[in-house]
């Protein structure tokens, strides 16, 4: 799988943060190992859209400043996807 290369409007560091966030809170169970959870473009975009919908953001599938602001907020460690 290839790493996400969405039309991000944020810095590479923030893109990394977004990938880590999506892996942690919006990916399937059993993929904690970073080498196993590299996200394809499609799954990253779908999971990102799920995250944006959950938080009531505009669903674009693109990492933007509003999305990053939410991702940087302190939060609970429980996934937003029911397991």
């Amino acid at each position: 799988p290839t790493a996400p290369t969405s039309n991000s409007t944020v810095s590479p560091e923030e893109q990394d943060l977004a990938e880590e966030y999506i892996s942690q809170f919006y990916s399937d169970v059993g993929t904690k190992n970073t080498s196993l959870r590299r996200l394809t473009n499609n799954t990253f975009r779908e999971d990102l859209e799920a995250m944006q919908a959950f938080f009531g953001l505009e669903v674009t599938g693109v990492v933007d400043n509003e999305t990053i602001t939410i991702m940087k907020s302190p939060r609970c460690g429980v996934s937003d996807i029911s397991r």
Partner: protein
Amino acid sequence: YGHFPGKPRWKKRLITYRITRYTPDLTQREVDTTIGQAFQLYSDVIPLDFKQIYSGTADIMILFKGGHHGDFYPFDGAGGVLAHANSPGQNEGGDTHFDDDETWTLTRRGVNLLLVAAHEFGHALGLDHSRDRRALMFPTYQYVNTYGYKLPDDDRRGVQALYGSRTT
């Protein structure tokens, strides 16, 4: 509000909890009182009672520790993830962990323990995250004045859907 798949919940009315490791940010008495207040928010509206024990294994085991702390989900230092909890069940079910790299307070400074504890105990009782920004179970932390704090409506309805109402 939301529930976990299968709607796990406690099948008894008296739930025990034990704090095995405290934060240095607050006195043990402050932590005990605040944790008790967080549970009280739920026992005010559902027919469950919570009792602190000081030895042995409680239904809900609670600790404050940073980084690796005995499960597969190590904390990440200050900021980011503040705490996490398991859904109801045997063994680790209901167990609740607070990241001690945060600064725990009883005010608006740092991270308010009452608000985070009440959120995590929602998970320990069977509540999943809510999409309602006003709900306690919304995933991100936001301080609100805790004086006279009551469980928001969305959370009350969610937990009463699992356990019924205290008044019925």
